[in-house]
């Protein structure tokens, strides 16, 4: 006599689930939505985190940026640098360049403006960036074809331009060799000498690089720089370097403290940790919202199971009179709850992955589906079923057979 087998519970549960399909579906729907929400939202959170990291890494390594003006807003990184009024002088740049290699590897000034770039009858919008030869090394951003301008181009204020990959695509037919072609930037003729590699970020790939001296002469008309890019010699002493440069520039600008300064320095380390922190919090927030919906789904299961136990009190009594033990009844109802949660969970995984994929494919949102979130959500769904189905099943198993048989 023999043990009551799990397959029997499974059969009974399936029968009861299929005998009330709409109710079963609605019950499982809570878990479905919960699991799908966890997977999709975590994928979107991870995606945005990844996007932030990629964009920060594309800035270059060990990067300090001296900006003109006061810091604006909570973000240390300035996506749009074309509206910064240049306030950094050649002296500032010379000072930074004069620092020993043990402190600063490269420094490059940068000013930018938005401009119209024209080739023949084709034209496109671009960010025109004036800089010097150190820029490519600092930002780890090099021409894929042709070459960057040289010091002699800068000294001679030559009208030469290295165009971003997107600018190339916008202006030229694919495969066309643009080297030596004349383009017009804001009406001024430039000779194309190179194409930059593709970084995959629209703001980066729509830039056109020209010598800083040329930029100052033809575009800004100012001898100042909007910002100075610095590549620190090593990561560990970046904060000390930042402080040192701050102090020296304050002194040179005759300003008492950073509160009143006409510049500020952004540190890539700070940027990274701030952005990662923000993205991490964001992911956590999304995951918690999703987890709450899973719990709500679990309560739905519990609710329905409690109703089912009450409705089927007489059935339970009959089964007990025929020899069902407490654990047989427990197993029957628990199996039912678990089938609902596991079934809901599996469908939820499918929906979640589809939604995350769809958001990426059709919504243009970055999403990274993580196996962990799938396992976590599914595991949580099963535990939800066990936990929230456990109580009603326990109630059922503890019914007094005489009372249960009498139940109308």
């Amino acid at each position, binding site marked *: *006599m*023999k*043990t*009551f*087998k799990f397959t*029997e519970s499974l059969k009974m549960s399936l*029968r009861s689930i299929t*005998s009330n399909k709409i109710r079963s579906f609605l019950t499982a729907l809570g878990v479905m939505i919960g699991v799908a929400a966890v997977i999709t939202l975590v994928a979107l959170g991870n995606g945005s985190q990844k996007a932030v990291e990629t964009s920060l890494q594309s800035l270059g390594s060990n990067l300090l940026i001296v900006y003109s003006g006061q810091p604006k807003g909570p973000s240390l990184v300035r996506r749009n640098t074309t509206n910064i009024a240049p306030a950094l002088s050649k002296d500032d740049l010379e000072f930074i360049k004069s620092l020993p290699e043990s402190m600063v590897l490269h420094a490059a000034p940068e000013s930018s403006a938005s401009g119209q770039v024209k080739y023949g009858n084709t034209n496109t919008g671009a960010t025109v960036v004036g800089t010097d030869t150190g820029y490519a090394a600092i930002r780890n951003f090099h021409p894929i074809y042709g070459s960057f301008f040289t010091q002699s181009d800068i000294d001679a204020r030559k009208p030469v331009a290295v165009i971003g990959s997107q600018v190339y695509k916008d202006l030229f037919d694919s495969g066309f060799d643009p080297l030596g072609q004349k383009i017009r930037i804001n009406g001024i003729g430039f000779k194309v000498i190179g194409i930059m590699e593709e970084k995959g970020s629209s703001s980066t790939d729509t830039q056109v690089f020209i010598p800083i001296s040329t930029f100052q002469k033809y575009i800004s008309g100012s001898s100042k720089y909007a910002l100075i890019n610095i590549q620190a010699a090593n990561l560990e002493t970046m904060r000390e370097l930042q402080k040192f440069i701050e102090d020296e520039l304050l002194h040179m600008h005759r300003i008492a403290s950073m509160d009143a300064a006409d510049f500020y320095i952004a540190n890539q380390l700070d940027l990274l940790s701030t952005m990662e922190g923000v993205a991490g919090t964001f992911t956590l927030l999304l995951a918690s919202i999703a987890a709450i919906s899973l719990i709500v789904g679990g309560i739905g299961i519990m609710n329905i199971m409690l109703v089912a136990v009450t409705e089927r009190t*007489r*059935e339970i*009594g*009959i*089964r*007990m*009179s*025929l*020899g*069902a*033990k*407490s*654990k*047989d009844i427990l197993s029957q109802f628990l199996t039912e709850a678990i089938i609902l949660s596991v079934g809901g969970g599996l469908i939820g995984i499918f929906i979640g992955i589809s939604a995350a994929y769809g958001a990426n494919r059709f919504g243009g949102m970055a999403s990274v589906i993580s196996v962990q979130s799938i396992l976590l959500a599914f595991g949580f769904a099963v535990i939800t079923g066990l936990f929230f189905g456990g109580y009603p099943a326990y109630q059922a198993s503890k019914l007094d*057979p*005489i009372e249960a*048989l009498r139940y109308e």
Partner: protein
Amino acid sequence: MIKIKNLSRYYQMGPTTVKAIDDIDLSIGGGEFVSIIGPSGSGKSTLMNIIGCLDSPTSGTYTLAGEETAALSKDMLAEIRNRHIGFVFQNFNLLPRESAVENVELPLIYAGVPVKERRQRALEILKRVDLEGREFHLPNELSGGQRQRVAIARALAVNPKILLADEPTGALDTKTGAQIMDLFRELQSEGVTLIMVTHDRDVAAQGKRIVEIRDGHILTDVPAEEWEK
């Protein structure tokens, strides 16, 4: 088969103690057909629940097939119900969503009988109670008499030693009731011990031995032919 000694079952209803059964002695041998009769509230249902191992006595002993039941756990009682006792209820107590044959299979499921054997046995027993051709009907597609026969088949499925019937003809018309009683007599002749609880004196008279209960005590315990209706 059944030995009951000094058996009592009290219920606590607030401050008062209700003596549903008070110090009863009763022995029933294998193959007997006993009618337990009494008005409602007499304690007959309580006695039947205890004989059926659905309830446990407050004091006294109940020995079923040599096994003292007072000391047994709930699960052990469930096993005894499964193995030794078949219940037939007034309102049949069939599971409405299961077909006749599936209802008959229920006790076999809990007895751990494999699927194939289970189905085969259930079909044989349904044939035995003249329900051939109705095996796959749902209870609500069957008449009252047919439903009660499904219930009897279910009670017989594990070959129990005792068939406990609680007002088995209460929901049936006289003619079908008589058919059920005929079936009981047949079963008894095959060696099944039959215990029937009823408040109907005519029905009770169909038994071979009559035990009359009043206020928790046994009033009379006589062979049917000596019983004064």
